[in-house]
Each structure stands twice: as structure tokens, then as C-alpha cells.
């Protein structure tokens, strides 16, 4: 039995502890609610509702007792306040960081919120494609973000700026800055974010956590306040790739309510991650993986620390997969700001096709 404090455990460790009966979801929820209260100076948290969270935690503990728990049941998380959370079950407003929506009580859950939480089919008006049993995670908070996700420093929220927990004089990045800061500060083991032109990836890098912008269409946009509908994607933010994979598995999948949701079979990203690739070995677990890298995104003007960090990661990839860096991008100025949209890519031509 581990003596690690609750806040220092990631999703995987909390899931293991809950499964082993080391602690209950109510205990974890109580501990982390107190921590969220203690660190309001970060500006990461826009809303909590202890009563509603504890009710969800009790339901999760009951589900575990019934033997119907998933791996994530009872593990707490928090949502970027760009996701609609049904006020009748979350007790929290949905504001998108804007005073225009201050106090807004959503009558429904976003699909991502429902799938990570108590499932679809709750509330009225959820007709077909209902997935009654969600993952059973417990929502502890709604997290600050740039107003309507428009920003890259989380200084554009109507409810105040978010601070970077590593250095309070610095920004956490944005627009999912509250999510990145809360995970980095160990206020919550995982959070949702959304990414249009970097809003998960950039704050994750600023705060030293792991975040994924999934391929467009993997996660439903239903109930997500839109920024640019053909680019917006929901994704997980946590302390490790494995924790993100657990969340992504639960939150992804086809949703009839999102017109551009990808009609693909459900994927278990976590299991895929743990499966040894064909032809790979423990020493080279990524052997056979093809890695593409747009060389044009690495101009001479790139700052030394970013260049160094990315190249250290590339060296690690090279070591694990024997990948290397080369590419061509046919657009003349594709290293322009990240929101630039390129014409239809032909992957084999425009991006490096690297085979090990």
C-alpha cells in the first residue's frame, strides 16, 4: 500500500487505489476538494460544488460495490469551462470564461462530459445513441479559460487571469490554461481541454503536463462552445501519456449529435499503448512507427530552450523507434501562425514520411 498523498497520484495510481479498496472515491473527492479550495490564488478554478461532487463520488463507490465500475469510476477530474455541464447534476455554471454567460445553467451535458461522467441518456431529450453507463469519473470543478477559448495566455478570461503554478509571475498558456495549471499544481489528476490552434498543446507545454489534441472527429463537439467548428477538438490533459490515453478512450467515439464526428469503431487507446507493436521489442518499443515532422515549423528564430527540448524528445523517439527528421511542406509559408489553414494535404508528399 502506497503512502503517497492523494494529490500526488495520477489517474492510473488513483484508479489502482480505488480498485484495491485503498481508499474510496468519497475520500479522494474530499481530499482534492480541500486542495482546490486552498489554491484559489492560481485563478484556475471558476466553480466547484462539493455537494454535487460528493453525490457523484457516492454513486461511483456504489457502482464499485455493485461490480459495474470501469477503470476510471470514482477518479476525479475537472472540465474546461467551455464544456456544457448539466446544472441539475453538476451544480456548476457554464461560462466559457465570459461575463455574457456568467451564471448560465446548462440544461444538458456535453457528450464528452457525459461519457467521462455518469453517461448519456440523463436529462431530457437524449434520444438515440444513448450510452447510459459513462466512465463514472467525478467532476470536481469547472476550470478557467480564455474567453470563448480565444487566447494563448489565459489572460483573456472575464473572471481573471490564470497563473502558472511553477512561477506565479508567468502565464500558463491558453486557452486551456486553467486545465494545465490545475493539473500541474496537483489540484486535479486530469482535466479536459479544447484545442483549435494550440489550446491544449501549448498550455500543456507551458505547465509541463501531457495533453493531446486528437485527430478531428475523434471526440464529439456536442456541448462544446464553438470557436472554429472545423478545427475545434476536445482532448485530455493529465500527468502522463498513459493517463491521457485512459481518458481519451472514455471520451472518444462516434456521436450522432456531432455532424462531423468520425464514424469509426471505438478505440481503446490505452490498450493500444500497452500492446507491443509488431516487430518491436522492449528495447525499441516504437520500432516500425512512422514519424512525420514538418521541418518548416523549426525555423532559425525558434528559441534555444524550445529547440533544445523538442530535439531532446526527438532524440528519445529516435532511440525508441529509430526515426529521423526530414520533411517538405508544399505551402510557401506554412510556418506562419498556427491557425493558418493549409490546402488539402497529401500526407505522403507534404509531410515527412519516415519509416524505421
Amino acid at each position, binding site marked *: 500500500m502506497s503512502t503517497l498523498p492523494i494529490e500526488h497520484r495520477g489517474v492510473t495510481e488513483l484508479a489502482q487505489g480505488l480498485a484495491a479498496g485503498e481508499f474510496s472515491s468519497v475520500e479522494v473527492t474530499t481530499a482534492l476538494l480541500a486542495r482546490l479550495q486552498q489554491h484559489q490564488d492560481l485563478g484556475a478554478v471558476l466553480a466547484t460544488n462539493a455537494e454535487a461532487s460528493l453525490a457523484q463520488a457516492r454513486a461511483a463507490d456504489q457502482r464499485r460495490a455493485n461490480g459495474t465500475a470501469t477503470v476510471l469510476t470514482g477518479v476525479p477530474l475537472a472540465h474546461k469551462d467551455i464544456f456544457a455541464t448539466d446544472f441539475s447534476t453538476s451544480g456548476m455554471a457554464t461560462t466559457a470564461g465570459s461575463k455574457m454567460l456568467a*451564471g*448560465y*445553467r446548462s*440544461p444538458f451535458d456535453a457528450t464528452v462530459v457525459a461519457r467521462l461522467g455518469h453517461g448519456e441518456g440523463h436529462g*431530457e*431529450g437524449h*434520444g*438515440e445513441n444513448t450510452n447510459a453507463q459513462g466512465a463514472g469519473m467525478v467532476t470536481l470543478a469547472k476550470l478557467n479559460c480564455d474567453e470563448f477559448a480565444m487566447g494563448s495566455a489565459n489572460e483573456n478570461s472575464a473572471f481573471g487571469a490564470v497563473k502558472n503554478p511553477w512561477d506565479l509571475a508567468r502565464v500558463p498558456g491558453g486557452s486551456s490554461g486553467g486545465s494545465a495549471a490545475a493539473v500541474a499544481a496537483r489540484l486535479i489528476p486530469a482535466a479536459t481541454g479544447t484545442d483549435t490552434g494550440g489550446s491544449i498543446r501549448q498550455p500543456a507545454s507551458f505547465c509541463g503536463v501531457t495533453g493531446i489534441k486528437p*485527430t*478531428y*472527429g475523434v471526440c464529439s463537439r456536442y456541448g462544446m462552445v464553438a470557436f472554429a467548428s*472545423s*478545427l475545434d477538438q476536445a482532448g485530455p490533459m493529465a500527468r502522463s501519456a498513459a493517463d491521457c490515453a485512459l481518458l481519451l478512450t472514455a471520451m472518444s467515439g462516434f456521436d*450522432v449529435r456531432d*455532424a*462531423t464526428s*468520425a*464514424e469509426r469503431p471505438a478505440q481503446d487507446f490505452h490498450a493500444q499503448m500497452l500492446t507491443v507493436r509488431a516487430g518491436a521489442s522492449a528495447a525499441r518499443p516504437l520500432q516500425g512507427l512512422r514519424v512525420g515532422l514538418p521541418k518548416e515549423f523549426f525555423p532559425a528564430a525558434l528559441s534555444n530552450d524550445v529547440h533544445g527540448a523538442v530535439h531532446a524528445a526527438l532524440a528519445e523517439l529516435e532511440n525508441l523507434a529509430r526515426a529521423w527528421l526530414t520533411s517538405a511542406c508544399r*505551402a*510557401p*509559408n506554412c510556418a*506562419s*501562425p498556427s491557425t*493558418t*489553414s*493549409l*490546402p*488539402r*494535404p497529401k*500526407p505522403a508528399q507534404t509531410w515527412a514520411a519516415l519509416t524505421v
Partner: protein
Amino acid sequence: MALTPDDVSRIAHLARLQLSAPEQAKMLVQLNGFFSIVEQMGAVDTSGVEPLYTPLSAVQTVELRLREDVVTETDQRERNQASAPAVEAGLFLVPRVIE
């Protein structure tokens, strides 16, 4: 094309934004910066490229999905109007904006 200070005050008026002179000057620089990005994008040769309705169709065939024309939502007027600052006879009341 580049915007002029007059364009900025007109847009600010239409958007009901009250901008001070320094804010207007800053906004002019930012808006013109955006236009210069759009001009770079416009320089890309897109002849023969079909417009995408979803980015996924860049890499796979995606059929536009249509659903049966049937009622799928139940009446939730009261829940949907619960957050409205003012409601009368089931209608949203909004401040008069057109004089």
C-alpha cells in the same frame, strides 16, 4: 488590403465597442496583421482543390451524414429558459437594439 482608422471606428460602432484612441490604434495594427496572414494564405495555389466540409475528408472519403426528419428532442422550454434574464409568455425578452 489594409484598414484605415475610419474602418476601425465604423467596425467598433457596429460591434457596439467603445474604444479609446490608443485602443483604436492598437486594434488597427492587430486587424491589419490578421489581413496580412490572410493574404499569405491567399497566395497558396488552391486550383483543383475541393473545399472540405470536414478536415477528415483530406485523408479519407467522408459521406455527408443526414438523419431521418423526425422529432428527436422533447419540449424543454422551461429548462432552456431557466437562465434567461427575462422571459414572458414563453419568449425570451431582449433589450431593444434597433432604434
